[in-house]
């Protein structure tokens, strides 16, 4: 009995190991290429480990200014997250506490998330041309705010419903205004929820490609669009593809490392209470 249990455990470790190798190898490959020299990148057969770690591929990106696209991603994703979180949370509060708009409003808002980007990006582009906000921070921030709002409202509604009503009532009795109740009771009480939701909102905007592709030109190119600028005829740009991708991916990995606890609830649209 003991022996078969040990064997079982060993097999499970073997399985876990195989899976980890499978799912991490492409990431390893991407990262490793960014440290290779051109000779190593275009070596046949492929080199699995660069001779020396060298940062030239990154230095080039910083020297040519390509690396500022990561900053653009940061500004756009950061600002739209703050906006969406604030507007979405107060909206969610109204829906959760006062049942504003009833089920219809809540469902309509959720359905907004399901619209495929490609179906609406075209008219949005024309609208932006009209407003003159193509290739501006404002344009992308507004767009990501709008596309994240349904998610924020849906998630925060769930978190707010978990707050005991009595807390808010006693704050009202103590003479707080309604805004103060939101600011002093609701926000602090669902801090964990705010944090988790904000991270997903951020990652969505950070990783978006199609909106940024259509709505930026040269001024505020985000890193995802920049990566595709290196695709093309001659494959000489592999070093840039990988270094740029790594610059954009490392921040997300760091963020996700801190939020393991909230991951499941966040990506399941709240269906799993983690």
């Amino acid at each position, binding site marked *: 009995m003991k022996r078969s249990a040990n064997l079982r455990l060993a097999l*499970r470790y073997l399985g*876990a190991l195989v*899976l*980890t190798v499978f*799912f991490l190898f*492409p*990431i390893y*490959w*991407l990262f490793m*290429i960014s440290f290779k020299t051109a000779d190593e*990148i275009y070596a*046949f057969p*492929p080199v699995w480990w660069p001779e020396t770690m060298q940062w030239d591929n990154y230095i080039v990106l910083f020297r040519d200014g390509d690396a500022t696209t990561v900053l653009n991603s940061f500004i756009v994703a950061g600002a739209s997250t703050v906006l969406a979180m604030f*507007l*979405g949370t*107060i*909206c969610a*509060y109204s829906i959760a*506490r*006062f049942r*504003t*708009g009833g089920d219809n409003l809540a469902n309509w808002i959720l359905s907004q998330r*399901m619209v495929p980007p*490609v*179906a*609406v990006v*075209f*008219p949005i582009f*024309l*609208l932006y041309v009209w407003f003159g906000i193509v290739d501006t921070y404002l344009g992308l921030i507004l*767009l990501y705010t*709008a596309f994240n*709002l*349904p998610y924020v409202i849906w998630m925060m509604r*769930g978190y707010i419903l978990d707050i005991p*009503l009595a807390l808010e*009532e006693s704050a009202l*009795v103590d003479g707080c205004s309604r805004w103060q109740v939101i600011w002093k009771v609701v926000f602090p009480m669902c801090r964990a929820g705010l944090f988790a939701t904000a991270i997903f909102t951020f*990652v969505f905007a950070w*990783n978006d*490609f*199609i909106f940024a592709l*259509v709505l930026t030109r040269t001024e505020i190119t985000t890193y*995802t669009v920049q*990566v*595709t600028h290196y*695709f093309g005829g001659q*494959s000489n740009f*592999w070093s840039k593809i990988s270094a740029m991708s790594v610059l*954009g*991916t490392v921040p*997300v990995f760091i963020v996700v*490392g801190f939020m393991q606890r909230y*991951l*499941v609830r966040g*990506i*399941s*649209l709240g*269906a799993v209470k*983690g």
Partner: protein
Amino acid sequence: MSGPTVRSGDRGFRYTLVAPSIFVLLLIGVFPIVYLLMVSFQGLTMTDNDTSFQGLLNFRALLDDTRLWQSLMHTVFFTAIALPAELLLGLAMAQLFIDRMPGRQVFIALLVLPVVVAPIVSGATWSLMFDNRFGPINQILGWITGEEMAVLWTVKPHLVYPAILMAEIWQWTPFMFLLLLAALSGVDKSQLEAASIDGAGWWSTFFRIVLPAIWPVMAVAILIRGLDLFRLFDVVWALTKGGPGTMTETISIFTYVKGFQQFETSYTGAVALLIIVLLTVLLTVLLKRVSIAR
């Protein structure tokens, strides 16, 4: 009950709270659809600025557009393979990690990394992996078969599908895994024990107890992934741009090409509306069967 209560909010306040969100959603969410409705009945193209009413002209053109229906079929094809594959693989992985084992959390933390990689980056990564000469996949295949391999993964017509599916399944299986793992850990242990005392086999336990218990989460996972696959764009864009020819063109890529490379304004409007209508019908049918856990 005296004194102010939370629920008896005055009307002004509750609407003030929702107003900004509704405004933004109307502007970015509803305006485009109204605009699509308008423009799709006109005759705008790159060269023709014709805003006169054209009736159903564009919609009739949809029916005859084989490229459109093929791109829709490609989308359906990718979904039909990737979704079940991700689901089954994810479920198998969740089963593997459901019991405690030392280092379990570390494995899980590592396995979910593909989910947060930008899809365009994951597409780029796989195009590096699949490169016929400098990519490791042909090299590994060469070791297995014992001869040098130079398979043109992203070029040869019938190899591009496996390449795209590979990238897609690699990225999103961990998503299924994570959700199903959470769902499986919520299954009532005492029921499982009772079943094993009654001598129920693994399969019957799974179908009678486990599956009904995890179904609500599984349904949400399928819904989320299904919607994502319907809009599949980034990975294909990075790997093949819809090529060779239009062989891997998904409905999203088709719409993009029509709108932003061929500037068929009115026709693109009709295509976009078609997508929205199809999706709405699909969702209505699906949601009738599955109510989302709230």
